[in-house]
């Protein structure tokens, strides 16, 4: 029998451990939770919360490809989310009865526009460095908001575009009942978005583990060194920007399929970009799965923190100071954010991964 080399031994051990590690089972459990949500919590509020966690997790992960894995800070990332959202909303909302062809075309147009714009932004990264690149992309994103607001005959201005989805995705569609739950257009849309998000997430995971992804991480760590190893770093940075932006635009189209409208504030606004930044910091830069933790943290906080006041009034009816505190839920959110940053300096997943890797190495 041929003796295995040290590299082969390590790789076979790694392959064997891949399906027995706690992380693998945790991923399966999270996926199962997403799948059974419509059956356990069929209310719209629950579905809306879980789906937005999913959508934002993919959006944040696509931003993490740029920031965490390639070291590119782009404030224009949400603009691509908006392009996807507007493209699908325009096709479904402005041309009569929505059809599957319009839905498909909406995604195709979004992908084409995004590819062209992402390439343009990539060339900018050649000319300007780091913080200047971030500022330029912020200016481009602001320009997109102004365009969406001012071109009101086309984009609906500040009111945006309201649209409905075709066929089985229609809210009024009902396939009948399964295990006590009505399989409506909402539920079908939920599963459609879940499947696409899962595919996008797996693509991103594959992307960062590929040789291409490793070179991008090397560029993030030390760009001149990566170039001196023989890599034309611009090509890798452009690939990263285009890939991240394409995922962002697809997920923007999915988002608008769920919410049924697109306006500058909901799909292009700077606050969304800030949310994405917060999510990536909370989850952990350069961790990919941190995007899910960050998105869950923020969406749960936004959904449940405003309800704390009524909860406090029910539980502690005489403590008016507590009611007043709970009314200012953003203050509580701020405290929670500080605590997360304090106890998880590399984000929730980043800190845990770091701890486990260091322990393993020692």
């Amino acid at each position, binding site marked *: 029998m041929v003796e295995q080399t040290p*590299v082969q031994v390590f790789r076979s051990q790694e392959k064997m451990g891949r399906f027995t590690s706690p992380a693998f089972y945790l991923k399966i459990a999270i996926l199962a939770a997403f799948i059974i949500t419509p059956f356990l919590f069929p209310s719209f509020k629950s579905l809306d919360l879980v789906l937005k966690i999913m959508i934002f997790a993919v959006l944040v992960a696509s931003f993490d490809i740029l920031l965490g894995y390639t070291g590119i800070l782009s404030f224009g990332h949400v603009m691509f989310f908006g392009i996807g959202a507007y493209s699908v909303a325009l096709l479904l909302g402005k041309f009569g009865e929505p059809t599957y062809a319009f839905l498909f075309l909406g995604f195709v147009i979004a992908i084409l526009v995004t590819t062209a714009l992402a390439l343009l932004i990539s060339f900018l990264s050649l000319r300007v460095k780091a913080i200047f690149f971030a500022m330029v992309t912020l200016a481009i994103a602001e320009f997109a908001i102004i365009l969406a607001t001012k071109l009101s005959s086309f984009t609906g201005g500040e009111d945006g575009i309201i649209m409905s989805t075709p066929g089985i995705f229609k809210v009024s569609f009902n396939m009948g009942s399964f295990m006590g739950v009505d399989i409506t257009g909402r539920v079908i849309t939920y599963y459609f978005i879940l499947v696409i998000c899962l595919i996008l997430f797996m693509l991103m995971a594959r992307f960062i583990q590929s040789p291409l992804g*490793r070179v991008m991480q090397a560029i993030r760590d030390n760009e001149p060194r990566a*170039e*001196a190893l023989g890599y034309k770093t611009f090509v890798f940075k452009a690939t990263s920007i285009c890939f991240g932006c394409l995922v962002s635009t697809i997920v923007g189209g999915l988002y608008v399929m769920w919410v049924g409208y697109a306006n500058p504030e909901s799909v292009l606004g700077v606050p969304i970009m800030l949310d994405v930044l917060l999510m990536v910091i909370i989850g952990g830069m350069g961790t990919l799965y941190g995007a899910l933790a960050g998105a869950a943290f923020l969406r749960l906080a936004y959904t449940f923190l405003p309800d704390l006041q009524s909860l406090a009034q029910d539980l502690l009816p005489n403590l008016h100071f507590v009611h007043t505190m709970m009314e200012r839920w953003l203050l509580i959110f701020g405290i929670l954010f500080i605590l997360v940053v304090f106890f998880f300096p590399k984000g929730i997943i980043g800190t845990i991964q770091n701890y486990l890797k260091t322990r393993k190495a020692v």
Partner: protein
Amino acid sequence: MTDTLLKVDGIHTFIGQHHILQGVSFEAKTEGVTVLLGRNGAGKSTTLKTIMGLLPAKQGKIVYKGKPIQAKKPHQIARMGIGFVPENMGIFSELTVEENMQVAMLKDDIAAQKRLEDVLQMFTTLKDFWGAKAGILSGGQKQMLAIARAIVNETSLLLIDEPTKGLAPIIIDALIEAINQIKQHSVVLLVEQNFYMASQVGDDFYILDDGMVVHNGRMQDLVEDDELQSRYLGITK
């Protein structure tokens, strides 16, 4: 048939407003180790960075295997078979040791895998930290990883910048052994301040001072010439 692999001819390099290299000229033969010696700030590291294309040469020629390379980009120079181990080692600290090696491997064929196994035989410590982040390695281990990364590809010329800086004597002995192995199949251009290291591995030497070559010859001659060592390198016995 020429016996020169690399010819540096009168290069001038600026860093900002500072005129660092003021007409440096030297040659590296097709075999052995050529050492660039000199005091701090003499321009040794700048010379290597200029050869690698990381700093532009304003004037002069750099000819490698008969082709001018002074106008080429670093990635093009690397793909011509020149490996570079910088002074700060340039480790990708957030990547694992394995990932550092994989990034360095420009090909993934059987020959490349064989070279990887050979490199791991040379630097056995790396195997113990194969799955660990490179950032946690000690200085000596990082230096070994940096050299391993540079030689895992088919390199004809290896540029190594002060590999002994900050390392313990026992690690330096291991590095001497490694470089003596490397020189069997690759030409090495070594920048070094540690004269013990330089004398153990070097075949030829050039002494740089204020951005110019002020002396050159066979390493054996320098080892035997105390006066020369004292004058140019400040070594007193």
